[in-house]
């Protein structure tokens, strides 16, 4: 799959299970100790309304030492899966931090809040540190959807990515509609970049 239609970034503290999430989605299996090469990047074809959409999924380094450079990862991403570990409260705090970062730097990127390791909580309710009642307000604040997933059982994983794919396609169609409206009104397109150099654009279109 050489053509990637949409970039999806996984963010979250280290050891929340970002890589397992990707593995589960792409290979349909849970591999806690399975050895894979290049698991940090994956691409997957989703069908939306009978049309293929290839998602490129970027895993990121969640360590705090790399916090300042993580910004480079989500440049140009259409969706971001914000992972936190249901059994680890600090990871949820990190997610909160990233949600703020994302809305500031990449407003176009849609956020999906995702609690991982649900299977552990299902087995033993005492291990739950992040209640749904804590996560839901955050999801509401940032206009995101909340998923609680388990890479072990595969719960909610497919629905998470299907939602992303569907939203991407919807966003695209509404974008093109706006685009067409604008084009029909102005005659030609002015995106932000060309608007800055309006004079040059005219010169170019004449030549």
């Amino acid at each position, binding site marked *: 799959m050489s053509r990637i239609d949409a970039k999806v970034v996984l963010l979250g503290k*280290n050891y929340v299970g970002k890589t397992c999430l990707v593995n589960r989605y792409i290979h349909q299996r849970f591999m806690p100790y399975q*050895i894979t090469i*290049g*698991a940090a990047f994956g691409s997957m074809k989703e069908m939306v309304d009978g049309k293929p959409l290839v998602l490129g999924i970027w895993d*990121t380094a969640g*360590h705090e030492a790399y916090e300042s450079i993580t910004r480079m990862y989500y440049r140009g991403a259409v969706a971001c899966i914000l992972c936190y570990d249901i059994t680890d409260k600090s990871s949820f705090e990190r997610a909160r931090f990233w949600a703020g970062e994302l809305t500031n730097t990449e407003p176009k990127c849609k956020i999906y809040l995702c609690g991982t390791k649900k299977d552990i909580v299902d087995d033993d309710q005492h291990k739950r540190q992040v209640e749904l009642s804590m996560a839901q307000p955050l999801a509401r604040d940032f206009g995101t959807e909340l998923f609680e997933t388990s890479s072990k059982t595969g719960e909610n994983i497919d629905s998470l990515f299907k939602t992303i794919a569907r939203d991407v396609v919807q966003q695209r169609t509404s974008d093109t509609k706006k685009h067409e409206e604008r084009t029909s009104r102005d005659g030609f397109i002015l995106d932000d970049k060309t608007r800055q150099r309006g004079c040059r654009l005219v010169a170019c279109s004449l030549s």
Partner: protein
Amino acid sequence: MAAKKPTKLHIEASELLCKNGCGFYGNQLWQGYCSLCYREECQRAKVAQQEQDSKKMMKKQAEDADKASLFSKFAEKKTQHINKRAHTLKSMFKKTPTKESVPEPRAKRQVNKETQQIKADLMDYLKQFKRPTAEDFVKIVQELVDKLYQNADAPVEDLTDLVQDFYIKLGKRMDSHSLYKDLSSEDIDTLLDYAEKYITVKMYTSLFCPATCDDEQKDLQMQTQIRSLHWVTGQQLDTMINEHETEVRTLVDQAITEIIEVNSKKAPQDKLSCIVRCSKHIFEIIRQSKEGPACADDFLPALIYTVLKANPPLLQSNIQFITRFSCPSRLMKGEAGYIFTNLCCAVQFIENITHESLALTQHEFDRYMSGEAIPPQSGNEYMCEGLRLMYDNLKTLAELRQRQEKVMAEALQLQQEMKDFKENFKQEVQNVLIRMPLTIKPRKMKVNLDDDSESLDLLPSPLLPLTVDNVGMDTRNTRVRLFH
């Protein structure tokens, strides 16, 4: 001709530092100066030479080219060097009022092998399409190349805009124009690739690290920074790289080779594929050093470690080049894009490295950075490539020695065995001989009784028959005598 100018391209071991004594390393291509001092020197020389007429300059340039060509190893840098010269030369000419001395922009064009190769490939590829389509494609690409030649001195941002606008325009044209409607999406992708490759390789000298930007300075800063971070170990970066295993070390070496190779490739996609290969090695290292899936949490530190160990030449320039002139669709989304982003992150991390990112105190960090002290655990690590190689070689030598000793011992043993065997054999033969002594029987001779031989003389003469006189009593007498 060469005698006119002292050959400064030759370098002594002691002259590694910049001749200006600024503390940076010099380079023979910069005539022993570091790049900054060399630039200043060039500026001075430029002013001094302004009176000289253009012919003389051209001659000198050719001379320089001749000299530089001796160093085929630095062919890459050489072209850059010459180009820079041509650059200063050209900007100089602009100031001279006489019109005839302004060289044609076409005169700068260098036909090099790589460009020709790509051109030939492209032409081959275009053969499968209809003639008007191919012609249109070539025309568009050629237009951009001409435009780039005309704007060779423009700021690099303008060049970037030119090229990026071109990609967008070309992509749109191929999507919508009727000439291209028969092409499959793979064909369009390949054509875009070819366009990118052709343009960047052909215009490499003016697009890569142009004089109008500060890439070179950043390269230098980066290089110095990496050099002063030589003490950083894998453990400090939280990598699982176990450098003591030969296999892992080989992979590290391979990754380092690939990342250094980036500078020798010209087209952005070739540079990117080097980076991708490098990261494949890194993933393999992680796979060998750790149980479990290789994730970004392991990959980024390992990549940082590789960059630190490799200290790739002109890293910033290369990254900038790829960012500026490669197709945006490739850079933002695919796997190459992912790995490239990781490399950018690694570079940024190294640039902004602090004591916190290595979990050290400020004091420790400063001391390590200034070279006053080295981290205690670094004794286990191989501090530098040379030392590591030396240890490797020593190990190999020791192994060889052991093997030689073994061979020697075995040879001696074999000799002894052979001796013993000989002795034993002799002994056995003796025994057999004693048991069965050899008696030589005289050979049986055939005796010819009728032969005349001396021994016959010794024999008594044969009996002679009695002659009987009486013939009448012959038969009876004879018989009687016989019976007697």
